[in-house]
């Protein structure tokens, strides 16, 4: 991990949020935190303040290898790492230019000796629809929120209806009688 100034903001961690069981984890942004456990607590505080969420993953930003379709095209023949043992990588991709709140979605896992090879493997394993951006992250670098505490971490946000705009209904100034003075 890159060394950070001691009193600085600390390293960055990419955050992935799963909205509901069966849906993929999605990149929602990042947090600054010093260590993985802190990063998870901060991820919940920053990115899960409103429903819905059932799981969070964090990974050091430095561990994420990102490449866009444009970069792949410009690169020409894609040179991959050769030799060395295979490691597990989590693969994420973006497949649409549609306006959205989240970036890449988790699509699955590949085994490869390095990130460039992992991207190549992901393109083969998950060819459709074509990805606009690929992210690959070593599985060992991804830390998950504790499953057994999912209720405690994520349910309370549902009850705080006062921070949902729907709690305020239709607001028309209307022609109401003023409360008399005094």
């Amino acid at each position, binding site marked *: 991990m890159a060394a950070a100034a001691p009193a600085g903001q600390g390293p960055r961690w990419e955050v992935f949020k799963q909205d509901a069981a069966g849906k993929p984890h999605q990149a929602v942004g990042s947090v600054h935190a010093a260590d993985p456990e802190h990063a998870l*607590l901060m991820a919940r505080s920053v990115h899960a303040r409103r429903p819905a969420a059932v799981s969070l993953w964090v990974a050091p930003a430095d561990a994420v290898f990102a490449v866009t379709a444009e970069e792949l095209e410009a690169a020409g023949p894609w040179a991959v790492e050769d030799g060395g043992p295979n490691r597990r990588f989590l693969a994420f991709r973006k497949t649409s230019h549609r306006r959205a709140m989240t970036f890449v979605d988790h699509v699955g896992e590949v085994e490869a000796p390095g990130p460039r090879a992992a991207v190549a493997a992901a393109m083969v394993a998950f060819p459709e629809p074509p990805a606009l951006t690929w992210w690959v992250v070593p599985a060992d670098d991804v830390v998950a929120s504790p499953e057994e505490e999912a209720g*405690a971490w994520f349910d309370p946000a549902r009850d705080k209806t006062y921070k949902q705009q729907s709690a305020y209904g239709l607001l028309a100034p209307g022609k109401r009688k003023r409360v008399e003075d005094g």
Partner: protein
Amino acid sequence: MSGSGDLDPTVREALIARLTAMADDELILGHRDSEWTGHAPLLEEDIALANIAQDEIGHALLWLEARTALDGSDPDELAFFREAGAYRNVRMVELPKGDWAFTLLRQFLFDAFETELLARLARSSHVPLAEAAAKAAKEEVFHLRHSGLWLERLARGTEESRRRLLAALEQLWPYLPQLWQPLPGDAALAEAGVVPDPAELEEAARGRIMAALARAGVEPPAEAVPNPGGRERHGEALVTLLIDMQSVARADPGVEAW
């Protein structure tokens, strides 16, 4: 099992007092935590601590609403129009916020006690109290993780963080026992199964706190300390706090709505 309507009058009075005390703890602690908004060491922690403050004020409302069901009192009336002498929070929560070590250690001590208290209240014979406690207990899981994390990081961070943590511990330790000190009416409540046995609760809370301190490599201070007395005793810190908290509401006491 009891609902709001079918309590013995002595038990009912005792429960009103207990709910008020718990609500006051949460409201005053929430106030102190919310003083950090915009001033925390990291943007993410600003959000985290504000969320915790929000939860605590939410818990205060939970307890006050449970009291409303018993005596028709109004939570805002209780919060904004009682003088310091009528508040029933423990001294520990009204102490000024201090530095990050003081705030987070105070939070940890409170969270550790709350975790044990709420787990037991969730089994209360009084159903509305059990339900409120179960709800609060859920949020408390995250609070304890967060304050526990800071206990570790401050204890095992730098020399300066450890020094500040130990100074905070010295300051807070005398106030700790007041958290589990029973209220006058608690005996009747314990007998009715509304609240847990105080001795057992104290043992569990102490045990949790001691274990956490040991894991963090921190020695607790010596035990012989002055007793802060009953919950009706407060310091000037609470007076200043309430002047702040109540000023807008008191400037226009008769309003229909804020």
